[in-house]
């Protein structure tokens, strides 16, 4: 399969699925509509590992369990896409070596995102694709924060990398 599908098609498909999820699927389970949430859902799923990481560290992100099955689906879907488009092979995966700087950046970045998702009550996916069209003030403020963070971090990165 060739990778020439326009990104707007992707946006339309994801928008429709998000709408379907909100209107039809989540009310069946929860008696209340919930849009797709990736960061918060991931956080809740990972929260089950908390007992192994920090004892007695409870937090409540409030993401319904329905998201738990959706999240592995995203990984499986992109994996299937990568295999079909021959972009993924175990051989190259095993051969790839990471630079120390890249690992450090990934660790710090992951830590900041995890913390920020909890503080901002969700990630870019939820706030941009559901909260913004829903005209949620919370999402608008979070998005201003996200865009400011991206802008400043990019400027700093540009300066350091010349």
């Amino acid at each position: 399969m060739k990778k020439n599908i326009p990104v707007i098609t992707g946006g339309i498909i994801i928008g429709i699925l998000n709408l379907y999820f909100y209107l039809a699927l989540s009310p069946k389970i929860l008696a209340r509509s919930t849009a797709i949430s990736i960061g918060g859902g991931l956080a809740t799923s990972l929260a089950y590992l908390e007992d192994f990481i920090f004892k007695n560290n409870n937090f409540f992100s409030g993401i319904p369990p329905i998201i738990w099955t959706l999240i592995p689906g995203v990984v499986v879907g992109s994996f299937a896409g990568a295999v079909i488009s021959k972009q993924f092979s175990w051989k190259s995966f095993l051969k790839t070596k990471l630079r120390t700087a890249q690992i450090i950046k990934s660790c710090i970045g992951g830590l900041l995102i995890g913390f920020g998702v909890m503080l901002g009550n969700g990630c870019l996916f939820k706030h941009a694709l559901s909260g913004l069209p829903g005209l949620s003030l919370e999402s608008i403020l979070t998005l201003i924060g996200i865009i400011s963070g991206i802008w400043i971090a990019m400027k700093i990165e540009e300066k350091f990398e010349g």
Partner: protein
Amino acid sequence: MSFFALAFLIGIIIGFTAHYTRFCIFGSIAEWIGLGETRRLLGVIAAIFIFSFIHFWGFQGNISCGGVWKGYPGLNSFIGGFIQGIGYVLIIACPFTLLVRLGEGSKSHIFALIFFALGISLFGYFREPIVDLLSPFTIKTQTFIKSSIWVDESKKFKKHLSYFNIQTIDGGKIEYQEGKKSNLLIHQSPNGNKRVLENPILLIYIAPPCCPFCYPQAVDYIKELENKFTKQGLVVLGIFRDHSIDDTIKPFIKEYNTDWILARDPEYKLLKRFDITPETFLTVMLIDKKGDIRLKQEGFREKHLLKYKQEISLIIKNK
């Protein structure tokens, strides 16, 4: 097909679509900021446009359930977003793209995922001081979640309970009656068998409106109280709202292995008497042997557990 399987399928389609179309919200914003390139932004705008159709059916605004930040736009939203934004640049992905990259076999994103887990745990660890610090800068709505123990002193609230009845989820009935000598809690099973409890200490757990599964710690604390005080007359009554019995309440019983008496009040007939509205979060109440509501609060955290232990001990000593 089960709804959970359907959600998994939706996830697969989203992951597949993101891989083939290079749909990436963070990537499109970074390209726009860094290069002035807006081509990829069109995909995001399309997704936003389509979701905006929800206004034909009504958007509830608070797309998550409960938690301190439920519907509380404020400084926390901006700071949370800002911190995330920096993280996105460092790992060159938002959580959604992180999952897509993991599927595509990116090794660096495995580290990002592990530290993402540490980040959320770190927040959990410092949650209470953060909440205290940022709460003054948060817009509080009517559904503001009270974080401390309180007993409602307003005249509207009936502090004394003389009678109520409610149907249990198995088709039985629970009836609370105030008698001259003692108060009675009568649990009638669907086949007509009756269990009468004299002067019970009643702990009422009112499930949160949308996600009863999301607060396992609250359930654990109540189970701890149950184990400690059942022999002294503590009875736990769980009340659900308009949750589906098959899709939500039965899985809840299975997940948390509870033997509480469970009832459902979709029309808020009883809940209204406790001042519970559809917006009220998870609520726990303690009713003493005389039928007086001793404690009531939204949420149930460790400090509440300690207070409940003290209060139940006092009730047992008839104080």
